[in-house]
């Protein structure tokens, strides 16, 4: 600011302006995170995303850098989300871990035992009002140990054309699993290579999580009271009988490869009548030109129930500075404005009702037909228990489902073997 009359000496106004600026600047600098070293704080994030998610994250981070110059986000390290649990636990065991990692909700229990995981109850409570399943997924023993990252729900996507060809009306909310099997049977046409529905057949989590809504609907639970045995010994048999009926009618396409891509490719090529999936698949389905409709998941009791598989951003303690910076980043990221952008790119549902109400999301809903079905399903969605033995219970159930799908075992036998393995995993002291 030059003096108004070119006088070299500062006049009083100029002096006050300068001093004020100095004070203000110091005050602003003091408001930021207390720094022991000058320069921005680097926050290391293991984001676990594939290319599409990474792109959106890059854009968001670029914006964050503009508005928060004191913090730099490093997205370089880590592995894909599927492999994250082992990576992060190994990192914790070795003492060198990132500040934020993308951890599946079902894996959080194992990770959260580490004292290096930051308790973020206050952060999440101060958030935009997360959906109940999202909050449930990040809560371990009553304390919130992570920030919700991605929310989805399971519903059934139907190929309208195939339904029309088979002259079957589209299912409506409140339909039963018996209806589902029946519809699948009617949609199946061996001659043209059309299947009624599809199911992953590798025994992985994608194979398994589709079964839980059935179990919950029947009053069962993944892990029984007391934690030393499964909670679905009887309900599981009934659920597996649905699977058996599908397989016996040859109405189900079995995807033998991990990642379930083959199954969705077959759906997008018009070979499958209906498939249970999440909102992340809609963009690909639309791109493939399929005229689709989304209906809620069927149940035994006609009551709506589905499963949600939230993923989380877990924070780790690498010192006060970095924790603060990481918290700032995550509360910014989950604000509705950013959330909507993230949801779009990562294929998530809005994490909070406020985000859902934003015009940006409403626009997306308008573009993507039937998206609200997934969102509405969140009201009646349950999440998998946050328990360290869950991965092993899931593996046992996966084996059972695949055995029944391939006709190698009866539901009762399959569940018996599953119970033996799952119970064994549950009694291992942890």
């Amino acid at each position, binding site marked *: 600011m030059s003096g108004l009359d070119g006088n070299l000496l500062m006049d009083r106004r100029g002096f006050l302006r300068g001093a004020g600026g100095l004070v203000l600047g110091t005050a602003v600098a003091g408001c930021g995170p207390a720094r022991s070293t000058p320069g921005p704080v680097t926050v290391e994030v293991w984001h676990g995303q594939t290319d599409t998610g990474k792109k959106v994250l890059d854009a968001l981070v670029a914006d964050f850098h503009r508005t928060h110059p004191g913090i730099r986000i490093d997205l370089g*390290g880590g592995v*894909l989300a599927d492999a994250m649990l082992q990576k992060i636990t*190994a*990192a914790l*065991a*070795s003492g*060198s871990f990132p500040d934020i990692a993308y951890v599946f909700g079902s894996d959080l229990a194992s990770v959260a035992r580490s004292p290096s995981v930051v308790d973020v109850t206050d952060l999440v409570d101060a958030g935009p009002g997360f959906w109940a399943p999202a909050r449930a997924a990040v809560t371990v023993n009553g304390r919130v140990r992570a920030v919700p990252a991605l929310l989805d729900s399971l519903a059934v996507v139907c190929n309208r054309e195939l339904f029309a060809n088979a002259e079957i009306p589209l299912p409506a909310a409140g339909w039963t699993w018996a209806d589902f099997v029946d519809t699948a049977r009617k949609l199946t046409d061996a001659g043209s290579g059309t299947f009624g529905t599809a199911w992953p057949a590798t025994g992985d989590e994608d194979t398994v999580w589709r079964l839980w809504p059935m179990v919950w609907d029947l009053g069962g639970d993944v892990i029984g009271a007391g934690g030393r045995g499964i909670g679905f010994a009887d309900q599981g048999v009934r659920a597996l009988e649905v699977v058996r009926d599908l397989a016996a009618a040859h109405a189900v396409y079995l995807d033998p490869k991990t990642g379930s891509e083959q199954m969705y490719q077959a759906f997008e090529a018009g070979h499958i009548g209906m498939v249970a999936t999440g909102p992340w698949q809609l963009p690909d389905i639309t791109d493939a030109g399929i005229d689709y409709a989304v209906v809620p998941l069927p149940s035994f009791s006609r009551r709506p129930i589905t499963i949600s598989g939230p993923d989380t951003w877990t924070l780790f303690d690498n010192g006060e500075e970095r924790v603060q910076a990481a918290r700032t980043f995550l509360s910014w990221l989950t604000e509705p404005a950013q959330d909507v952008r993230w949801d779009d790119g990562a294929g998530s549902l809005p994490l909070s009702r406020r985000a859902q109400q934003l015009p940006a999301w409403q626009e997306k809903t308008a573009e993507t037909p039937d998206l609200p079905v997934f969102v509405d399903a969140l009201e009646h969605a349950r999440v998998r228990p946050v328990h360290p033995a869950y991965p092993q219970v899931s593996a046992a159930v996966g084996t059972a489902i695949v055995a029944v799908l391939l006709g190698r075992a009866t539901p009762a036998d399959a569940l018996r073997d599953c119970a033996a393995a799952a119970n064994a995993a549950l009694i291992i002291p942890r």
Partner: protein
Amino acid sequence: MRTQTTRPARLPFDPWHLLLVPLALVFAAPLVWLLLSSVMSNAEINRFPPALWPSHVDFAGYRYVLDNALFLRWFTNSLIVSAVTVVSNLLFGTLGGYAFARMRFAGSRALLALMVATMAIPFQLTMIPTFLVMKKLGLIDSLGALIVPSLVTPFAVFLLRQFFLSLPRELEEAAWIDGCSRLRVLFTIVLPLSRPALSTVAVLTFLSTWNDLTWPLIAINHDTTYTLQLGLTTFQGQHHTNWAAVMAGNVITVLPVLLAFLGAQKTFIQSVTSSGLKG
């Protein structure tokens, strides 16, 4: 070779070739395919039915590998670990082997027996505590965690001891009487005669550290510290649809050992057989 007097026609070559050629092909074919597929384009590999011979040489796989993965870094890591381990095994194995062979001290026999017995301990029993020890030392995630447990192996000590025992004592005693220190005798007289044993230890130590996956998998988490084997399997997991690149990475992993072997075949084979026959 028995003469075949009743055979109507003689083959222009020994009939054994008829058996050996297909057999040799069985062993060689996968390696040939490794090389060929590393220079095929993915379009060719993904075709159905898949091609069994590349139509043209395409280095896209190698370019992808060098651009998208830290293969050179991993190669260097493996090299450092193997080189240091070989040198330290030669050094400490020589010292220890010589002491057990030529020096008398209380408990030497029992100690040697104990050390040899540790060779029989299965790895699954020691891997968890070794991890915890390395963790306490703060070495996890560094090359030190890979080097320290393999600094000396009982195999090296024992093999060198057996070899030193087989050398005639007279040469050493002459030098000893002349006033040479033990160490000098060892390094100037014994070692030059110990080429076969030393190269056996070097070859086998190099082979086992270069090819090891289990321990690096446990001890290393950050991808900049991976060894070549660990990097290769991780790379395959992440890029498994890009087979040309995966095979290119595999070629890079395999080439050093292959070249070393082809260059020093006799030494390799002798090392392997001597470890076997004397073990």
